Every structure is written in C-alpha cells, then in structure tokens.
C-alpha cells in the first residue's frame, strides 16, 4: 500500500518538469522582466531623457534598446511632416524633447545617414554588478568620443615631440600648433605609419566626418591644451608633495598605479604591471639596477640611487 502510494507521488512529481529545453534564437526584442505597457513606457522615458540631456548612463541592454528607438524617432524628426510630428509627439513625454527633435537634431543630423547614437561601455554597477553604458547622441556639445580622441591625440603628439626634440626643449617651448599634422593624419589611410596610432587616426577621421570647417582647429587646440596639462602634471604633483612635506616629513613621493603607461612606453599594460616578473623580461644581473630616467619618474618618484 505504501509502495503504491510512493510510486504514484513520484510519477506526479516527474510529470510537472519540462524535459525539452527552450531556445531563444533570433528574437529581436528584450522583455526586461516587465509587462508590455511598463516596458514601452520605460523606453519612452529613456528616449525622452536622452533627447533632453543628450548623454545618459544606464544598463547596457537598456541602452541598446533605447538607441534603436531613439534613432527611429530622430528619422521622424528629419522627415518633419505632419504625420511624423503626430507620431513623435505621441511617443515623447516632454515638450522640450519634441522641440529639440524637430529643430536641433534635424539640423545636426541632416547629412548623416543613420547612426545618430553611440554607446560607450562603462564597467559594472556597484550594487548588482550590472554592465553599465553611456548612451549619447553623436556630435552633441559634450560628445565623449570627441573629448577622448582629443586627449589621445594630445598624448601622442607629445610623445612624438619628446622623441624628436627631447624633454628639456618640450618643457620650455610647450606643444606647438598641431592643426597641420591633424589635417595630414585625417587624409591618411589608418593602416599607414604616421604620428598617430592607427586606432587614434581612425577615431579622428570618424569624429571629423560630419563636422564643419573649424572642427580640425578646435580639436588641435584641445589636443595641445591637454598635452600642456600632461607636461604640467608631474611638476604639479611634485610641488604639492614638497608643500606638504613639513606636515608629514616621512611621506613618500607620489607614485603611479601599477601598470600605468608612461609617455613613450611601448609594452602592453599587463607586462608593465607585472614588472620584473613579466614573461619575456630578461633576468636582471645582480647589482645592475639602473633607474629608468623619464620625465615622470624624475619628477614624481625620486630615486634612491640618484646622487
């Protein structure tokens, strides 16, 4: 009697489990664990915020879905006819976003055939380790790619100058005007050898593509300003340390984090971080330790062996 009951229970339990696995190939839309109305309203809010602020930070899957919708709405804005206006005003949740759509964005993206948004991956969120992303409209006043490329260009121009002129001259003169160099680099094929890295040249060409005539000069000025800042940083940190020496006399000189790439360093990050333990580094003969003289280490870390 007990055995019969037990077998019945086992059968009942096994029949509730689905033995065939469910696949999700080629599905276009994400559900976000929300009902259809909630999902749509969330995306509408995200698109409205994107139009209002032109740069938002959210999770990566939300950014991807928002980008897709936002680009379709911007196409509506470019069309500008009555039907588009009706549909866009039904979608967007703030009047400022609607006005910007038909005035600012329609002008800005008049020549651009699509691709009005850009997603930058930005690490993981602290609370739940969700992958984060910054979603922005291309060519907006706070364009991130513009800023980051100007910094990269500035750093590489400085490296080139240090190679050719030497640190002392560069410190005295500062970085010169770089517009001519940038114009050359812009026309060059990304794979060829020039002053800039291939990736930086590629980025440069991309960000200058749909901009006006003065864009190159603006970028050059930004790059040169950043190069001056890079030159000044070790001096400034050394000066700060000297200033605070009387308060804490035993405090060490400021050092860069492990793996930080100095200007002119060619080795990859992991190799730099591993130091003498990196694979491929020849073993150092005992007693042959020589300090690495570059501008940064001379001005920040100091040397025990320097006389």
């Amino acid at each position, binding site marked *: *009697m*007990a055995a019969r*009951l*037990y077998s019945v*229970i086992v059968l009942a339990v096994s029949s509730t489990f689905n033995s065939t696995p469910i696949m999700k190939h080629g599905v276009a839309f994400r559900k976000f664990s929300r009902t259809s109305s909630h999902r749509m309203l969330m995306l509408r809010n995200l698109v409205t915020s994107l139009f209002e*602020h*032109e740069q938002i930070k959210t999770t990566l899957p939300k950014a991807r879905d928002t980008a897709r919708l936002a680009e379709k709405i911007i196409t509506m804005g470019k069309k500008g006819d009555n039907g588009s206006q009706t549909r866009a005003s039904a979608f967007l949740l703030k009047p400022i976003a609607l006005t*910007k759509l038909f*005035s*600012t964005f329609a002008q800005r993206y008049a020549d651009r055939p699509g691709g009005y948004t850009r997603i*930058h*991956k*930005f*690490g993981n969120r602290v609370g739940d380790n969700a992958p984060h992303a*910054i979603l922005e409209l291309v060519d*907006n*006043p*706070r364009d*991130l790619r513009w*800023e*980051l490329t100007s*910094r*990269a260009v*500035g*750093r*590489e121009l400085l490296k080139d100058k240090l190679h050719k002129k030497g640190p002392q001259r560069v410190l005295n003169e500062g970085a010169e005007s770089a517009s001519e160099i940038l114009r050359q680099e812009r026309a060059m094929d990304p794979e060829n050898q020039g002053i800039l*890295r291939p*990736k*930086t040249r590629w980025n440069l060409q991309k960000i200058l593509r749909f901009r006006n005539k003065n864009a190159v000069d603006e970028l050059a000025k930004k790059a040169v300003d*950043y190069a001056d800042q890079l030159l000044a940083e070790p001096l400034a940190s050394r000066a700060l340390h000297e200033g605070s020496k009387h308060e804490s006399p035993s405090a060490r000189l400021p050092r*860069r*984090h*492990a*793996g*930080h*790439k*100095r*200007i002119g*360093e060619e080795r*990859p*990050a*992991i190799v*730099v*971080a591993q130091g003498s333990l990196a694979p491929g580094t020849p073993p150092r003969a005992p007693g042959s330790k020589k300090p690495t003289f570059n501008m940064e280490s001379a001005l920040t870390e100091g040397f025990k062996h320097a006389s």
Partner: protein
Amino acid sequence: MATVLLRRTSASLTFLRPSLFANWLAPVATAAASLNVPRTTWNLPALGSLLELFPSIVLAVPKSKTSHSRKAMRSANKGLKDKRNITNCAGCGSVKLAHHICPNCYSQISRQFKDKKKESGDIIDLS
C-alpha cells in the same frame, strides 16, 4: 427507481442468504449497494507524517564527514578568474578594461563640464 431496486435487492438478499445463489449474489449486491450510498467512514493507513511512507533505505544521507582534502579538491575550480582584457587608456595612460571607456578620463571630462556649467550659471545651452 434505482434506490427502489436496491432496496428490493437488499431485501431479497436477506431472504436469499441461505439459498444456492448467495455465493455470487452477495458480492454483486454489496457492489451495487456501495455505488450509490455515500459512505462516511474511510479506511486509510494511520500516518504520523508522510515520512512513514518512505522506508529509511530510500532517504539519501552522507555516510561520513567529507575530509578536508576532498573538500579542497572539489573547490579547486571555484577560484576567481584573472581578467585578461586589461589595457591602457590612450588619453591618460592609466589602466582600463578593453572596449570600455577610461573611468579616470571620464571623471575628469565630466568634472570639467560641471565646472563650466557652474561658471555659466546653471544653464547649459545644449542646442
């Protein structure tokens, strides 16, 4: 109609008990009787808990304490994995994740914009 029939059969049963057909009539009658009459008493096994259904040979239980060595061997694969997608930022040279933006650069850029916004009086012209 059926109840009338039943009463008849039960009546005939008591009368036919010593008869020749009692052997095969009795079970049929009782079966017929049990169909329609609701019973209030149920015959169930007395259960203290459902566990009494499962003989102890069925329940899985560890035979002995897992040794330190075996436990350590099992967790050999559970260590944290190294990140290999580490590069340097082309702008500031600090360490960053590949295909991600440099948080150091972003922080500086963001602070610059916020300072500019403060200077120009909280209204940034984004048009």
